[in-house]
């Protein structure tokens, strides 16, 4: 009898602990929502910021999207190509395991170190300057390993029978990959890319060092212009603007950022669930 009570107590304790993560998530999102919703208005989303207390975050939203765009243009083709090589071609030798090891290494590099690298290499050594291109490429370095991993996982879940059927028809290996393997793997690849986008859009340290101060009130006209972004804008207002007006703008910008991130995550989640269902049906 005593043991049974103990079991029950421990089980209750464990479930209570498990709920802490859920509670923390709701408190953080709820707090930002309650404090940020008041700042959101059509003007806030359409206008440019003017000093700390006035205007909106339109250039910041566009800037963040542009940075993520450049980042994806770099990381997605490279990541998918690496993944195809690792999943379909790579022989089981030292070179392949070295490649894998370095992909893991790159995933482990702290974002601030990638930011410093972007500053030294892209901004100063290549002379690109603090700009959209530097920021986007540095973000690309950061999410490259995630796109490689996600794409490789997706390619590996394609049933071997599909490949064999295609090869047996006399189709070459590359055409098999392009028309059969990638076609079945693409929802998984897109899910990985969406998650990478969520990571890139919220990243602050890298962008702060390579892309601009976040308070720019103009839209970027070229790849070589400094560009504003939501996370850096939040950072500047939260640490340097001490007036209620600045703080309410920081809450508003945080809310926009969280909403962008949640939209990407939910979309990725839906896509993954549909994909899992389809794959199960296919077997």
């Amino acid at each position, binding site marked *: 009898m005593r043991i049974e009570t103990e079991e029950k107590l421990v089980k209750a304790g464990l479930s209570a602990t498990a709920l802490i993560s859920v509670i923390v998530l709701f408190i953080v999102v709820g707090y930002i929502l309650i404090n940020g919703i008041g700042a959101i208005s059509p003007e806030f989303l359409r206008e440019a910021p003017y000093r700390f207390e006035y205007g909106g975050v339109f250039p910041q939203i566009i800037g963040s999207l542009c940075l993520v765009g450049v980042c994806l243009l770099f990381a997605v083709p490279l990541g998918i190509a690496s993944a195809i090589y690792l999943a379909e071609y790579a022989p089981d030798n030292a070179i392949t395991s070295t490649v894998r090891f370095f992909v*893991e290494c790159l995933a482990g590099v702290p974002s601030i*170190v990638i930011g*410093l690298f972007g500053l030294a290499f892209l901004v100063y050594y290549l002379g690109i300057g603090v700009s959209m291109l530097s920021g986007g490429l540095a973000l690309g370095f950061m999410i490259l390993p995630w796109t490689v991993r996600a794409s490789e996982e997706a390619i590996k879940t394609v049933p071997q029978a599909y490949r*064999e059927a295609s090869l047996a028809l006399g189709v070459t290996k590359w055409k098999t990959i392009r028309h059969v393997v990638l076609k079945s793997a693409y929802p998984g690849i897109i899910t990985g890319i969406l998650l990478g986008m969520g990571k890139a*859009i919220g990243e602050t*340290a890298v962008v702060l060092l390579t892309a601009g101060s976040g308070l720019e009130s103009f839209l970027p006209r070229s790849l070589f212009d400094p560009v504003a972004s939501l996370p850096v804008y*939040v950072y500047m207002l939260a640490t340097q603007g001490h007036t209620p007006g600045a703080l309410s703008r920081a809450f508003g910008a945080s809310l926009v950022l969280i909403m962008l991130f949640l939209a990407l995550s939910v979309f990725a989640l839906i896509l993954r669930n549909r994909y899992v269902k389809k794959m199960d049906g296919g077997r």
Partner: protein
Amino acid sequence: MCAQEQIRNEKFVKPRWSAVEWIIEKVLFACALSSILIVLFIVIFIFQEGFPALLLGTRFFFGMTWWPSHDLFGIVPTVVSTFIVGIGALGIAALIGIPTAIYLAEFAPEWMRNIIKPSVEMLVGIPSIVLGFFGLMVLVVAIRDNLGGYGECILAGWLILAVMTLPHVISISEDSIRAVPRTYKEASLGLGATQLQTIRKVILPHAKSGILASLVLGMGNAIGETMAVLMVIGNPNIPGIPTSVLDSVRVLTSTIVIEHAYVDWGSMHQHALFALGAVLFVIVAILNLLTCAVIRKGMRKTT
């Protein structure tokens, strides 16, 4: 995680040699090499820029004062604070994360899992700047009002970093608990042990290396984390060795972000900031290698 099995179809089909196919394979191979190239470039540039400061030798590595305007670049207080903040955060994350992992792997009904798992996944993705802002507005104020001091302190850093590390600890620990062979569990239950005794005496000892790996990896994440921790720990101008959890401190990452804004390119100060980056890189690399070693050792034991 470190080495995964290959699916290879060369075994089944030997296609005819074709120039296009050959070129495509080489191009894909070149793309795969890009990760190696990027990592090497990172190492070269960080160390090259940090080199003049690393050459200061003992004055850099064992110096007790970081005071750039007086040309003093001692990193001891910053490194000590970094480890204090990282280890404390990890302790809290372990206290919450390991029980959560046990619950998810052994007890949780399907509907509970469907609530907890996505929440944990969301938690890892919440932009760190937003979490830091939350910490600044809520935690720091609460600590200042209830415990005294400035509020921006080690304790606030612990709590915020614990939230950021928690998802990593939970997901890897859960995987390693699930990886314990079912037969072990069934044998133990069959002998009349209760579920709790089985977890304590059979499952946890077997999942130990995976749980340990999750903690080492979490430590690497905590030490490399920048924005969230920066906003809640105060960053005094001249950092000292902290004496209480209510002291303001500086960590490696926050020093780089704050001081890069007003550093002259080419000055010793700039080199010192890159040297901090190099130190951070080495610490995190050692922790990551340690994770890999722990996982590999655990794998060898179970097979």
